[in-house]
């Protein structure tokens, strides 16, 4: 796999656009998923993920190959997401009620239309709840938590994606999951 990636990267560097299509195919789900978990909105996630790939293409010469291509790609994507979150911070929340509706939030707009069996509904609610709680985490904890548990990265990889020392990454993961636990417990009790 790694040698395939490297050969595609080399081809892109020498001006082959089709080779880049291959790279997008390989990483699109991962990058899209990360963006979605970061910003919590499908349209925005699609836009961010596409932008991440475009930037990777434009700056391909800056990728030196001293670490994995995926690490580089994740770094571009997380930085884009964090920038986007910072820009919209004060005035935009998924929890906000949509004007002209009764109690509908953007989350209900995102939700799947397919009818689900009873216990699956419960399972899904739980997960939606978790996604909401993840969304409420400060972005520095959120990034670390997502890379660790959704993308299943090692601490070392996360450290190079976030450009932070390993102990700092570890602390952020611990604090992040601690915060999630507290929020989750509250939800469970209120049910």
């Amino acid at each position: 796999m790694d040698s395939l990636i490297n050969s595609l990267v080399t081809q892109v560097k020498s001006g082959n656009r089709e080779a880049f299509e291959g790279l997008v195919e390989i990483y699109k789900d991962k990058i899209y998923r990360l963006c979605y978990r970061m910003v919590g909105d499908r349209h925005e996630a699609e836009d961010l993920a596409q932008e991440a790939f475009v930037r990777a293409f434009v700056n391909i010469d800056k990728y030196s190959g001293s670490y994995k291509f995926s690490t580089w790609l994740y770094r571009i994507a997380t930085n884009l997401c964090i920038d986007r979150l910072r820009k919209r911070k004060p005035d935009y929340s998924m929890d906000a009620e949509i004007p002209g509706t009764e109690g509908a939030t953007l989350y209900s707009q995102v939700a799947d239309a397919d009818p689900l069996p009873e216990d699956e509904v419960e399972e899904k609610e739980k997960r939606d709840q978790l996604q909401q709680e993840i969304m409420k985490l400060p972005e520095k904890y959120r990034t670390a938590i997502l890379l660790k548990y959704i993308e299943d990265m090692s601490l070392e990889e996360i450290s190079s994606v976030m450009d932070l020392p390993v102990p700092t990454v570890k602390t952020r993961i611990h604090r992040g999951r601690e915060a999630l636990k507290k929020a989750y417990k509250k939800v469970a009790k209120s049910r």
Partner: protein
Amino acid sequence: MSCVSEEYMDLVDKALDGEITAEEQTELNRHMESCESCREHYHALKEIIYEMKEASPVVAPAHFTENVMKRLPEAKKRSMPAQWIRRYPVLTAAAVFLILMFGSVMAGWNTENDFAVHSAAKNIKVNSAAHTVTVPKGETVKGDLVVENGNINVEGKVEGNVVVIKGEKYMASAGQITGDSQEIHEVVEWVWYKLKTFFTGQEQK
């Protein structure tokens, strides 16, 4: 009942990070049997992690790759020469220098048709009308002698180098040159000569 022991909190973190040793795990398990708060803490975190990992799979929307390819800037603007310049800045600088140098010297070859003599010596005969320089018989010229666009007759002795650019050198039987002597007729020779004098600063006025 709440457990305030930092030690067990650290053990829980270690267990969840997969860094716990068998001994520590045993110790933590024993503690959790009696401590409800630590047990609850550990299982709640474990559940959250499980839930996150199991979170319904998200896949990129349809036509994602197609749309990315559409958004890419048109055929990379930086063409081969530009890449080459970025990769080899020193070589590029040297090449540019040589081209400019060659160009200005070439221009010199084509335009400088004036008769000129460069020599420190006073005892040479210069005939500007006939474009001829003569080193008289019995005289000794000290230092280098450069003649541009003219001929030279060496009847005496030159203690130094003689260079004739776009001209002829005639040696009398008694004539003598102690240094190098050179006639330049071709552009290439001219360029080489100019480059040499540029770098060694040997050209005399």
